[in-house]
């Protein structure tokens, strides 16, 4: 199944949006962390600035998010991992509230309780987790609900190749296949689980091959290309909606930045990240659009302008929103 012109344009615009969102975050995140506070030996204060805590960005991994989410409706569930922004943006999570959450503001998705790794937007059925491997079984649950409710909804569990070594991942695959659940497991192989290379963590080359062990189709997408992901995901989503059960997809993708912002990346060969950027999937999709007369300089510029305005507005909203009252820490432990 090939993307329509409309879908191609949507994927392009979303990829531009994700990239600009992450690049803006990379800058904003640095505020207040450098130069060091007056403390001996402190070079980078992870708890400083308007966006404190850890920050995992996904620049380079946009094709996975848009290629899959292009097939989804609002009713379909997405469960992401600790690196969640690209999935969230592709699933149309409220950009203002998501950004405010990372600033720890009262207007954030979680009223400042969750922060960047814990984004919950029930309006578009998006959630994520900082615990590696947690997404796959939870996606099974959403798919089980769809089945019990008699809906043709699907659920996506996104995770990294590192997470595919978790017991939870294997248990989820077995459950999904056993119960013929409308779930698609999407593994982003960005080669590293923090500092550990895939070849040092995973006993086989492709996780797609692991699908066979659980009686489901496994698909390897070898290029970091939105259209290739779109095709693989399209088939999987259609199968799931037809009630034919789960699929495991692995995409070979690239992480341009460190595991987290501030990561010294001493484990990574010098120049690797720059080399990866020479295969940037965004200009590649732009070129495809141009070759089909779907994009030209003027429309590209106006698309980018619209994206920039949305992102600027989201960061301004996050920055300018009020903090919650300190005592709100005591609220929401239980549902009312």
């Amino acid at each position, binding site marked *: 199944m090939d993307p329509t012109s409309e879908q191609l344009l949507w994927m392009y615009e979303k990829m531009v949006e994700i990239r600009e969102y992450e690049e803006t975050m990379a800058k904003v995140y640095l505020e207040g962390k450098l130069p060091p506070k007056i*403390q001996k*030996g402190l070079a980078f204060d*992870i708890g400083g600035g308007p966006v404190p805590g850890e920050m995992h960005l996904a620049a380079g991994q946009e094709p996975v998010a848009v290629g899959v989410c292009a097939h989804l409706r609002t009713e379909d569930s997405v469960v992401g991992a600790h690196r969640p922004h690209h999935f969230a943006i592709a699933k149309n999570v409220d950009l203002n509230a998501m950004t405010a959450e990372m600033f720890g503001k009262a207007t954030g998705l979680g009223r400042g309780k969750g922060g960047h790794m814990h984004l919950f937007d029930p309006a578009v059925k998006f959630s994520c987790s900082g615990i590696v491997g947690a997404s796959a079984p939870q996606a099974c649950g959403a798919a089980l609900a769809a089945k019990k409710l008699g809906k043709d909804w699907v659920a996506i569990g996104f995770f990294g190749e590192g997470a595919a070594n978790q017991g939870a991942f294997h248990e989820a695959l077995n459950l999904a296949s056993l119960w013929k659940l409308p779930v698609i497991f999407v593994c982003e192989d960005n080669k590293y689980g923090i500092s*550990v290379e895939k070849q040092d963590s995973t006993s086989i080359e492709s996780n797609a091959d692991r699908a066979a062990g659980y009686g489901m189709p496994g698909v390897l997408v070898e290029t970091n290309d939105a259209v290739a992901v779109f095709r693989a995901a399209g088939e999987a989503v259609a199968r799931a909606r037809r009630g034919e059960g789960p699929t495991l997809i692995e995409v070979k993708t690239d992480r341009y930045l460190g595991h987290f912002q501030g990561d010294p990346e001493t484990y990574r060969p010098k120049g690797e990240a720059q080399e990866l950027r020479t295969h940037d999937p965004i200009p590649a999709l732009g070129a495809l659009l141009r070759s089909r007369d779907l994009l030209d300089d003027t429309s590209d510029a106006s698309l980018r302008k619209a994206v920039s305005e949305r992102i600027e507005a989201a960061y301004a909203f996050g920055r300018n929103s009020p903090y919650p009252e300190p005592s709100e820490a005591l609220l929401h*432990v239980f549902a009312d």
Partner: protein
Amino acid sequence: MTTETKVRTLTMAQAISEAVAQEMERDQRVFVMGEDVGKYGGIFSATTGLLDKFGPDRIMDTPISETGFMGAAIGAAAEGLRPISELMFVDFFGVCFDQIYNHLAKNTYMSGGNTKYPVVITTGIGGGYNDAAQHSQCLYGIFAHVPGLKVVVPSNAYDAKGLMTAAIRDDNPVVFMYHKGIMGLSWMSYYEGSTNAVPLEPYTIPFGEAKVVREGRDLTIVTLSQMVQKAVLAADKLAAEGIDVEIIDLRTLVPLDREAVLRSVAKTGRLLVADEDYLSFGLSGEIAAIVAEHLDRVKLKAPIRRLAVPDVPIPFSRPLEDFAIPQVDGIAAAVRDLMQLNLN
């Protein structure tokens, strides 16, 4: 002839990795495995430099397969090896807890003492840098609650080295928990009191001996880990106001130095427990209960007070987190309040 003792100032992270290196040199059976312990040197630098010294056979990066490698530590220990097994954040233990609380903690007992499991589990604890609810817990109370695990929670580099050396030499499972905010990382604010003088030579600090960090006559603060450093800052403020605080650093929860607590409270007559774990069903309740059970020996001048995380997950946003985790000012305020109260 006296041997020269070389003493340097080390961060807690340096002290821990030095202890591990010295024990690995001393005992070929000791090895390290865990997530990012190799090239990365441990996310909180507890294994920095070890890969270069000992190579990948003894400093092993593991897959993100916690049940797998924690279970493997048990099996290897049963065969006579002495694994040190690191899982970055204590918050992640849920994925492998069965191996730990049903097996590692119990097998010696269930075998009638016929098996031993000299495993050291290392992990980072604590918040204070806005990493939210899945990355900021202490949870030592959970580990201490399960019989069969020794639990070590140092507050400074000197103690950390001695306690780590003792942990590796111990024939029992030891959970060694270091607060990220006192490791002396270049990327996190920390309490400098935790970086202190450490002898080069190996030495051990026995488990179950609390330390009187500061002597005082008016009130006892029982605490541990980063909260020790916060309590010291609070005590300095209070001293200027004429309140003389004694601070007890528990150092190990299992075994627990109950006598040190009782001795100090018997002297001061007032107890504040300052804890970064959750309030209910945990360390602070345990310490309070120990004193309550010995009111025949200890005469209290004021009710016991507990300062801990008020039974909420650790929130992300800075004002919320500052509210949830006890801070220096909060400790000082609690002490002032207690000084106003009188039981008789």
